[in-house]
């Protein structure tokens, strides 16, 4: 099982990715998908700008994916993370995990998201609806707490 990692400016199609992961296979019992979307923060946000560290972003997500693949019996694992400007309602991140049984698929997807949040080198900055440039989004300590649920 080779994880698929993509860092891209373009939007993506979760449906196509889900279909591709299970196409022609009859040993997969569970597919969990997580889609992270840009919220408009009650109308105050016009876009999120996602800066990333090219090279390290791919490498770090690949390391987290390899860790997930070592911990759970996965039949498919995919992570797509966008960079650049993302508008409210648009997708930012997609994680898919497939396994014979649901517990592995749920836990692997949950684990991937916790580690993407705290280890993948991406930084969000707000562009406000009033045309001004907002600040950099601050890391949330609850994200660190979430990642620490997993012993790695």
């Amino acid at each position, binding site marked *: 099982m080779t994880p698929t990692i993509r860092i891209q400016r373009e939007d993506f199609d979760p449906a196509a990715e889900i279909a591709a992961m299970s196409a022609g296979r009859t040993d997969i019992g569970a597919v969990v998908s997580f889609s*992270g979307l840009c919220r408009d923060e009650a109308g105050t946000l016009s876009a999120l700008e*996602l*800066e*990333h*560290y090219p*090279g*390290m972003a791919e*490498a*770090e997500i690949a390391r987290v994916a390899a860790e997930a693949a070592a911990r759970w019996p996965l039949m498919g694992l995919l992570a797509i*993370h966008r960079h650049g400007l993302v508008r409210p309602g648009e997708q*930012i*991140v997609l994680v898919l995990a497939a396994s014979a049984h649901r517990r592995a698929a749920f836990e692997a997807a949950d684990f991937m*998201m916790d580690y*993407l*949040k*705290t*280890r*993948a*080198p*991406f*930084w*969000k*900055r707000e562009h406000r609806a009033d045309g001004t440039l907002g600040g*950099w*989004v*601050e*890391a949330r300590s609850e*994200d660190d707490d979430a990642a620490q649920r997993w012993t790695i």
Partner: protein
Amino acid sequence: MSDTPQAQTDTRSVKLVYFAWVRERVGRPEETLAIPASLATVADLARWLKTRGEGYEAAFADETVVRAALDHVHAKPQAPLGDAREIAFFPPMTGG
């Protein structure tokens, strides 16, 4: 190295890259610098950078906040620089 007298004058060339508000405060996305070979750890390098001017001082004001990576791998402040070619400094990540 740091306990030999000549070490402080030895330098080596590294590529430094900065992201998000660290990049903004430093005032550039990257630079190649000759750093003293006596700098042993990530924290040593951060403290040395802080002496290079106001922008650096602002970027590294709170040493416990800025994160680092050595050749694309996360590194703690006490991590030895080793022979890393590309050293990155950035705020806590907010992707996902």
